[in-house]
Every structure is written in structure tokens, then in C-alpha cells.
């Protein structure tokens, strides 16, 4: 029996024009967004786990109105139910405040064995929310899993670190984050898309979670963006077409820049 809460984030589309709003926070409303691709691996892994045993997958998102799209997509892929924490006060929260909201929502969901997350959100790309969440919930973290096996209430993962590949295990409730190496996420089927329409989605405010407005949002952030600047466009480089001497020209360029 494993009930799994999967955390899914709604992010600005990386292939679109991502930018900031006037208060120096990520623009999440004025740009096209989607379910963070890296969270699809977490949804997939959670589905594999419950399909191999039993239990239910609940997807949880914290985000603006449009974040409901991320929940819907996960339900279409196969998750059983959804929770969307939606509150204007949350806008502009940093990772610490986001992890607070997620932790309170997970406590309210209560009936879970595993919290599963993606490797990083494709916008902030901090890869810290899972560790912060484990800290807040007092749970073990098995993070950056590229392989996962379950034996009873023990989970074992493979973690490919910079210096070594490690095997890590923990028992009981835990936070697991998965990399994009772990599986091949499935696409929503037509049946899945139809079935998703009938799946329950609850929308909670921060008041439902016992959180004060002063604990979240821009004002409560422990960090502050002072300014942002688009990167200056790179000046157009020199491009040559190989006519039998492309390699020589490349070496000449390297020599002219003192790389050789």
C-alpha cells in the first residue's frame, strides 16, 4: 500500500520568452506555461509504484489560477486526484515560503506514504524544495533518484553524484525526488483525457492550511531580487563554410585567440 503525493509545478514555457514582472519576480501570468516537464517523471514513477502494488496518486500544486492546467495534465496522465493551493497572497514566494505551503498542504492531505517530486523546476531550477520540505516535515530524503526499488516499506534509490554513484535507502514516510533518467513518461491517452474530467480536484487557500498572509509572498521572502538585466546579445560571430579547409580554419581561430 503506497499513497503518493506528487508535487507538480506550473512553469513558464522554456521555449517562450520568459521574463520578470515589475516587482522583480518571475512572470507566471503573462507568458505561456505548462506542467514542468521534469515533474512528469515524478508522476510517471508514482503511477508505476501504485500500479505495481496499490494506493493512489494525489498531485499537489502551489501556484496561480493557470496552475490548474498542471494538475489537469497530471490527472490526464493517470493521477487519481488533485489539490491546488491558490491564494493571491502566495505570489512572489521564495523557495522557503513555497516549501512551507507545500508542507502544510501535505500535512492536511495526511494519508500518504511518499512525497514524490521532480529533479528541479524548469524555471527557478534551484533543486532545493525537496530538501526544504524534508526538513520541514522531519522526513528522510531520497533525492535525485535515477532508479528506484521498493521492498516492503523500504525504498532504495540509485543516486549518480559528481564523485560517486550511491545506493541510498530509507523506511517509512519520505520525500523522494526523481531525475529524468528514471523512466520514460507516458503521454495522456484519449481515455485518460476523458477520465480526468471526472477526477476530484480541491482548491485550498492559505487560510485552509492555517498559514497567515504575512508568512508567504514577496513581503515574507527571505531573499530579494534587486535588479535583473537581459544578457547582452552576443555579437555575431564569424561563420565559415567548410570547403576542405574548415578544420584548419578552426585551428587558426584557436591560435589567434591563444587557445593553442
Amino acid at each position, binding site marked *: 500500500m503506497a499513497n503518493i503525493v506528487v508535487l507538480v509545478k506550473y512553469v513558464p514555457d*522554456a*521555449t517562450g520568452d*520568459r521574463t520578470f514582472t515589475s516587482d522583480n519576480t518571475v512572470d507566471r501570468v503573462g507568458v505561456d506555461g505548462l506542467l514542468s516537464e521534469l515533474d512528469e517523471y515524478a508522476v510517471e514513477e508514482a503511477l508505476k509504484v501504485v500500479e505495481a502494488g496499490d494506493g493512489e496518486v494525489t498531485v499537489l500544486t502551489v501556484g496561480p489560477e493557470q496552475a490548474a492546467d498542471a494538475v489537469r495534465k497530471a490527472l490526464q496522465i493517470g493521477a487519481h486526484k488533485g489539490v491546488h493551493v491558490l491564494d493571491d497572497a502566495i505570489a512572489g514566494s521564495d523557495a*522557503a515560503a513555497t*516549501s512551507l505551503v507545500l508542507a502544510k498542504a501535505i500535512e492536511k492531505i495526511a494519508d500518504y506514504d511518499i512525497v514524490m517530486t521532480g529533479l528541479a523546476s524548469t*524555471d527557478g*531550477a*534551484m*533543486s*532545493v*524544495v525537496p*530538501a526544504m520540505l*524534508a*526538513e520541514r516535515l522531519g522526513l*528522510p530524503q*531520497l*533525492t*535525485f533518484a535515477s532508479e528506484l526499488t521498493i521492498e516492503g516499506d523500504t525504498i*532504495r534509490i540509485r543516486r549518480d*553524484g*559528481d*564523485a*560517486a554513484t*550511491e*545506493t*541510498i535507502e*530509507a*523506511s*517509512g514516510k519520505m520525500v523522494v525526488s526523481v*531525475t529524468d*533518467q528514471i523512466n520514460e513518461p507516458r503521454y495522456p491517452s484519449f481515455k485518460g483525457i476523458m477520465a480526468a474530467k471526472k477526477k476530484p480536484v480541491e482548491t485550498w487557500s492559505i487560510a485552509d492550511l492555517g498559514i497567515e498572509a504575512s508568512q508567504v509572498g514577496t513581503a515574507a*521572502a*527571505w*531573499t*530579494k*531580487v*534587486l*535588479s*535583473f*538585466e537581459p*544578457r547582452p546579445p*552576443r555579437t555575431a*560571430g*564569424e*561563420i*565559415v*563554410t*567548410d570547403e576542405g*579547409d*574548415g*578544420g*584548419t580554419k*578552426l*585551428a587558426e*581561430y*584557436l*591560435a589567434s*585567440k591563444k*587557445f*593553442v
Partner: protein
Amino acid sequence: MTEVLVLVDHTDGAVRKTTSEMLTLAARLGEPSAVFIGSGADAAKDTLARFGAAKVYTLDDAALGEFLVAPKAEALAQLVAAKSPAAVLIGSSAEGKEIAGRLAIKTESGLITDAVDLQPGDGGVQTTQSVFAGNFTVQAQVTQGTPIITVKPNSVTPEENAGAAEVEAFDVSVSDLAKTARITASKPREKSGRPELTEAAIVVSGGRGTGGDFSQVESFADSLDAAVGASRAAVDSGWYPHAFQVGQTGKTVSPQLYVANGISGAIQHRAGMQTSKTIIAVNKDDEAPIFELVDFGVVGDLKTVLPQATDEVTKRKG
């Protein structure tokens, strides 16, 4: 002068270059103190002294190596409480960021990840980050607690600056709550004999355009003493190990020179290499987006261009 803690990034005392980079940055903010977790501090001491560590706190407890990140965060939190440093700098590896995340919650402190530069400023340290695949530069600041900052490798040139490196053993107590994710096996990564990808001055990488044969990419890399990287397409096809993937879900590199071969230049790949100083591409499609980034590009087949370039470089090096 206030202390700035730098978590030493090492394997059994072999100190990674990121540590000397962080000590260099720390010296701008106050007096650098190295925090050494695990065994091998004696071997590391000289390097730490050379880059300005006034103190070396050694934290040694079996639990620190046996369990994943939580005990390290707990130990650091105890040190932060004891020393009230001006900031804590940690390397931006997966483990580094997770230690930082837990430490931030424990100490109720702001966390900034992947800084590429730091300066003292009004109201505390100011950081520079490169975000959205390197398309924006952001200045930020921690507004609560002890600034906890993870620093990207290869962001600054380490500067030698003799320090006393006075060793002080710091006793930590690790709670049972932190001893839950147990590391049961660890297999060191095989050495490629080439420079570390994230530390290398030159990175030569290959993508789908290699067709699965990385030999020309490797030979060219070796002629330049470079590290080898790969695109996700090459990794997903099983042509090169994931540890060498450059990009959003691989490593971020910021070398002096990056040479992309048979790589189209998707946004997720750019995310890992866009801040390289000089960028070169070899690609047979003159419309490949990678050419928008380059300082120098060759439109041609890497199978012929690279061997010729390798020969020419080798000849010039004599």
C-alpha cells in the same frame, strides 16, 4: 573582522577547485574560515591555507558520511549558531544545494543558489546569478538570517592569499531524525583521465551529429587538454554517460572555450553552456540555432572538420 564560512568540497581530503574559488569570494566579505567535514583534513590544510583560510573547522562524526545530507546540515547549523558568520558559502552541486536548503530552513535564513559572483553591499552581500538559460543576469540579496549562498564552479579565478589555517575541531551532535536516509553503497566514478567537466578551461562536446562515434570529439578534446561533454540526445542514445551531459538536466559549464559539435543548440542545452566565454560550433546545418551563440562557427561535417583541426592543433603545439 567577521567570519565567512566556506564548506570545503573534497573527496577524502583532495580539495576541489570550487573550494579555492569560494575562499577567494569569501575574502571579499570577511575572514574566510574553511569548514571541513569528514576525514582527510591534514591533506587539505595546505591548499586551504594557500587560498586564505584563517581557520579550518574540522567536523568528524561517522553519521556525517553514512547518511545523506541531513547530518551535514545539522552540523553546519550548530557551527552557524556558535560562530555567527557573515555568510555561508557552499558549492553548487546537487549535494551542496540540498545541504544549503536544509540549513536555510533550520536557521531561518535566506538562500541564494548558483551565484556566479558576490560583492559586499549595503544591507549585506549582493549576489549575481544567471537565470532562464543564461538569458538574464539577476542581482539579489538575502534579507533574513545568515546569507546562505551556493556558488557555481568556475565563476571566479582563485587568488592565492596566505591564511593561518588554524585547525579547530568542532564537536557536533547528530540527532536520530537526521540518521534516516542511509548510504548503503558508494561506487566512485571512474576517472576519464581528462579534466573535470565543471572545472575545465576548455570543453569539447558532441551531440546527435556524432552519430554515436565520439572518437573525433575525444581526439580533438585531447589535443586541447579539454574535458568532453555531451548533449542529452547523445546521452539518451546511450553514446556517452550521463555524468558528461551538459545542460539543464546535466552539468552547467562556464569554461573559457566551449566547442559544440553536431549539437543543434536547444534552449535546454544552452542553459548549461551559454555563459562560456568563447563559443565555437561545428554543424553541417547552417541554420542550426547554435550558430546564434558562436564567436566562430564552421558549417561542415564534424567527421572531416574535427580530424583536420586536431592535426593542425597538434602540429602547432609541436
